[in-house]
């Protein structure tokens, strides 16, 4: 017998499942190891693992990756973890826990023994290859049995049964589910929901038999087993998994004569104390208020209350909500509160059933229609988080609650993160409120990761991940906006406001703008935020050459030198190759220039050629030769129209239906030189095969038999976004007029450095609003937008052509104003036959 070695009290935790582990975490977090010497017994070989995601074990996750903590977590925190040791009795008289290996004295005990799978008392249920689904060892047994099997049956069509069915499918067994009740998941869904669930699950190739009571299991003819049902019908299968509910592992408590429930479970009070105050119970073994909670979130709440009780606190367990959001066999199922609507008299329902998309949603609301009492979702859980917030926080429903479950269209009411009160629970596993998330942000957290680390929100079942992100995003945004709406310290205006000021007042220089509208608190020099932004606005409005003396100090280095600075201070040069079409003669010139100036060449994603490694002082000579050969600047350095990518189209392609190259060249020449809040990429495809990938561009044009379809606001890059169809079957002139308006509306209203995709996502009213403005002229500004675009187009000139003949503009293209030597620190080396920075 081991005796406590210090004056610390001995705490023994029996059971190392998710809830038992959570208790240990809570105790560590609260410094309980100062007061207690803690020993944990786990019957299984594995330390606590994530049972919620057990079926992923067959999808490639191993015990290690399912584990709730690192292997040395317990040891590091001074806690003794005794795995694979079964507690056989509680000797309350001696104050000892008896295991299959010894006796251990205790001062306090926590029972966290969980539950075991219920196997219905069917003759033959103990045959070989009749298994259960609860532990990793069970899964190993199922996997071993499945090797010799081709068919499998799960007895039980509830939550765990469907999980088990998924596991059998994952083992490539022909799978069937047998449920005693007349529908699947009888606890969570009603008849309609159950029927829809059946259809969806059968569509996955899983046979569903409901209303079937198995009478006997015997030798099969074609398979290992034969199941005989109440109507004498039979089903043959090689493997049977029982998953017909759980029962509390309460034998230790029963033998120790603790107070038990009539149908099992150790009775606990609000502080998780059993009838013996030295002994606590938590999780699925515990019976609180005559209820057993078979979900992880209530178990965690009990663990928290138990930890507090052990430390002498007053925190109580006050019951838990059994709302669940699941993905079973890939099918979304959600149940909130009183989903069946059978409790209060006068409750009213809204139901929505779509048998084509296979979605079912039901709301149970109070008789006055103001509160959500329950909800049921099958096929799509997208509305779960919103509904859960209405339910758990008792928020008043919108005037027409039906809108909450009608098919989502833009503008449908969703409960934004800002509408939630501070005491709204975001993560129910760890009981994290919106208020505590805000407190973390106030304390300096600046991203989702640090909020998760400090509050532990979304680290339990993970069901709140999307909601948590939206709360964090929204709150961060709110803080950012609160801090400062203005573009920088020099202007108390947003980019949009500055744009309107410039346009309406006809302001043509930065100096004038900062004098009339700049903040009086600064020196008035501007900065690297506002100067390029104003330069872009001035260019969008008046399109004067950016190399003019008044504008040059505003530009980013790339615009100043009309080339793209690379990491060693050299530049890359990208001449325009409209539509990606280039003559052999011009190709030769590019090669010759690259050879002469020692440039590295690479083909870009926008169908042109990038020449890297140009020294500052060589840029004018390089451009002299390029312009001589008929090239013009490509604006690769600007926040401006970059390229119009195209496929070869009807000119050559067997499938092309329109001249995509011709249209691409027309568009590129029309919009080249347009400066905008961010870069703009276009593409034109000659048929629906979409070889130009137009749907990933700001402006995408795809040929149809009758003309062109226009897509807008797509993006590749870091956050890809499919462009949205904006207008269809346009002729050439219609297409251009719509693009004129669209682009100028974007230029006017977007934030600085905001691509069209992000602009569109933040646009109030969304795509419909954009269509109203651009296609229906709802703001009455289209004429103005078109005229403004025409001004930009009329004032276009190649910036390089304007610069190379102007000695004043070339002044800066010198390595040193007082010395002709090139920068000696630029050193190159050779790689794959080309030069690169050393």
């Amino acid at each position, binding site marked *: 017998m081991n005796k406590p070695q210090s004056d610390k009290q001995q705490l023994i935790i029996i059971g190392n499942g998710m809830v038992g582990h959570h208790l240990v975490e809570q105790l560590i977090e609260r410094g309980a190891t100062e007061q207690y010497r803690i020993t944990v017994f786990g019957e299984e070989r594995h330390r606590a693992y994530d049972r919620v995601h057990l079926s992923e074990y067959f999808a490639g996750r191993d015990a290690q990756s399912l584990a709730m903590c690192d292997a040395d977590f317990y040891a590091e925190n001074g806690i003794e973890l005794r795995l694979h040791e079964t507690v056989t009795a509680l000797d309350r008289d001696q104050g000892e826990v008896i295991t299959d290996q010894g006796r251990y004295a205790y001062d306090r005990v926590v029972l966290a023994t969980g539950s075991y799978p219920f196997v219905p008392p069917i003759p033959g249920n103990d045959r070989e290859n009749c298994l259960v689904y609860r532990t990793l060892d069970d899964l190993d047994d199922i996997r071993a049995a499945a090797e010799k099997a081709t068919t499998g049956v799960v007895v039980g069509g509830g939550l765990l049964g469907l999980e088990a069915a998924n596991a059998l499918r994952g083992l490539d067994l022909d799978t069937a589910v047998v449920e005693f009740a007349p529908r699947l998941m009888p606890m969570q869904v009603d008849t309609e929901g159950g029927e829809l669930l059946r259809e969806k699950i059968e569509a996955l190739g899983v046979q569903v038999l409901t209303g079937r009571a198995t009478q006997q299991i015997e030798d099969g003819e074609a398979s290992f087993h034969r199941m005989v049902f109440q109507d004498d019908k039979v089903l043959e299968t090689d493997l049977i998994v029982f998953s017909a509910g759980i029962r509390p592992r309460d034998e230790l408590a029963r033998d120790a004569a603790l107070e038990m429930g009539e149908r099992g479970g150790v009775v606990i009070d609000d502080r998780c104390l059993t009838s013996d105050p030295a002994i606590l119970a938590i999780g699925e073994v515990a019976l609180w208020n005559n209820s057993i909670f078979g979900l992880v979130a209530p178990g965690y709440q009990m663990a928290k209350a138990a930890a507090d009780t052990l430390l002498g606190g007053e925190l109580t367990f006050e019951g838990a909500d059994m709302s669940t959001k699941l993905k079973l066999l890939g099918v979304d199922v959600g149940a909130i509160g009183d989903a069946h609507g059978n409790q209060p008299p006068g409750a009213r329902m809204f139901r929505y059933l779509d048998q084509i998309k296979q979605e079912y949603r039901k709301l149970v609301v109070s008789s006055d229609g103001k509160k959500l009492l329950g909800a049921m979702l099958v096929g799509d859980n997208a509305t779960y988080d919103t509904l859960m917030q209405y339910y758990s926080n008792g928020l008043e429903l919108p005037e027409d609650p039906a809108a909450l479950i009608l098919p989502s269209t833009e503008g449908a009411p969703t409960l934004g993160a800002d509408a939630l009160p501070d005491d709204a629970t975001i993560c129910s596993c760890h009981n994290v409120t919106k208020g505590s998330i805000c407190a973390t942000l106030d304390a300096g957290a600046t991203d989702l990761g640090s909020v998760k680390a400090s509050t532990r929100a979304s680290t339990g079942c993970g069901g709140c991940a999307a909601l948590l992100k939206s709360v964090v995003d929204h709150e961060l945004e709110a803080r950012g906006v609160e801090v400062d709406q203005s573009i920088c*310290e*020099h202007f108390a205006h947003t980019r949009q406001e500055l744009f309107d000021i410039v346009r309406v007042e006809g302001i043509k220089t930065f100096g004038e703008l900062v004098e009339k509208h700049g903040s009086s608190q*600064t020196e008035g*020099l501007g900065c690297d935020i506002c100067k390029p932004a104003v330069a872009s606005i001035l260019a969008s409005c008046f399109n004067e050459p950016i190399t003019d003396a008044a504008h040059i100090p505003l530009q980013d*280095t790339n615009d100043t030198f009309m080339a793209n600075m690379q*990491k*060693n201070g050299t530049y890359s040069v990208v001449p325009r190759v409209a539509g990606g079409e280039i003559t052999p003669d011009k190709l030769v010139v590019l090669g010759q220039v690259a050879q002469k100036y020692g440039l590295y060449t690479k083909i870009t994603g926008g169908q042109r050629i990038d020449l890297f490694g140009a020294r500052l002082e060589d840029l004018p000579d390089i451009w002299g030769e390029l312009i001589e050969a008929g090239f013009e600047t490509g604006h690769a350095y600007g926040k401006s129209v970059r390229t119009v990518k195209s496929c070869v189209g009807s000119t050559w392609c067997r499938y092309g239906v329109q001249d995509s190259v011709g249209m691409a060249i027309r568009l590129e020449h029309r919009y080249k030189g347009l400066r905008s809040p961010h870069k703009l990429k276009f593409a034109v495809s000659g048929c629906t095969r979409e070889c130009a990938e137009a749907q990933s561009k700001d402006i995408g044009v795809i040929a149809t038999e009758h003309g062109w379809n226009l897509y807008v606001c797509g993006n590749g890059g870091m956050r890809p976004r499919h462009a949205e169809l904006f207008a269809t079957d346009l002729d050439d002139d219609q297409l251009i007029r719509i693009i004129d308006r669209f682009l100028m509306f974007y230029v006017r209203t977007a934030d600085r450095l905001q691509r069209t995709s992000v602009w569109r996502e933040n646009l109030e009213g969304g795509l419909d609003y954009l269509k109203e403005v651009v296609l229906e002229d709802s703001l009455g500004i289209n004429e103005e937008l078109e005229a403004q675009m025409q001004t930009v187009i009329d004032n276009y000139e190649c910036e390089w052509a304007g610069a190379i003949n102007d000695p004043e503009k070339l*002044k800066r293209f010198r390595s*040193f104003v007082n010395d002709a030597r090139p920068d000696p620190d630029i050193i190159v080396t050779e790689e794959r036959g080309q030069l690169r920075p050393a």
Partner: protein
Amino acid sequence: MNSATAEASTMTQTWRPLCTKADLVPHSGVAAWIETPEGPAQVALFYLPGHATELYAVDHRDPFSGANVIARGIVGDLSGAPVVASPIYKQHFRLDDGHCLEDEAVRLRCWTACFKGDQVMIRV
């Protein structure tokens, strides 16, 4: 220039002509090559006509990228002090003492420069 000459004798520094006013770009920077007692250096010269101090000379070398590019950065003022933003990774350096606003441990070398008529002079 008289006081500067007097100082030069005690600090073994001398004023040298660097370039002309016409070589500068108003509200922006250009690079110049100088020989100092410690060896050659590349200087970024910033010209802010109409401001209290019209001329600044700081190191042309960007300590974060190692490239000689500071003269090509955007000039501005932050919290009341004139600064230049590195064109590579966008850190800000104060023009009067070279200190980096984003990293206290980093600073650019600074020189004193002034106009003598149309001539730009630097003390090295």
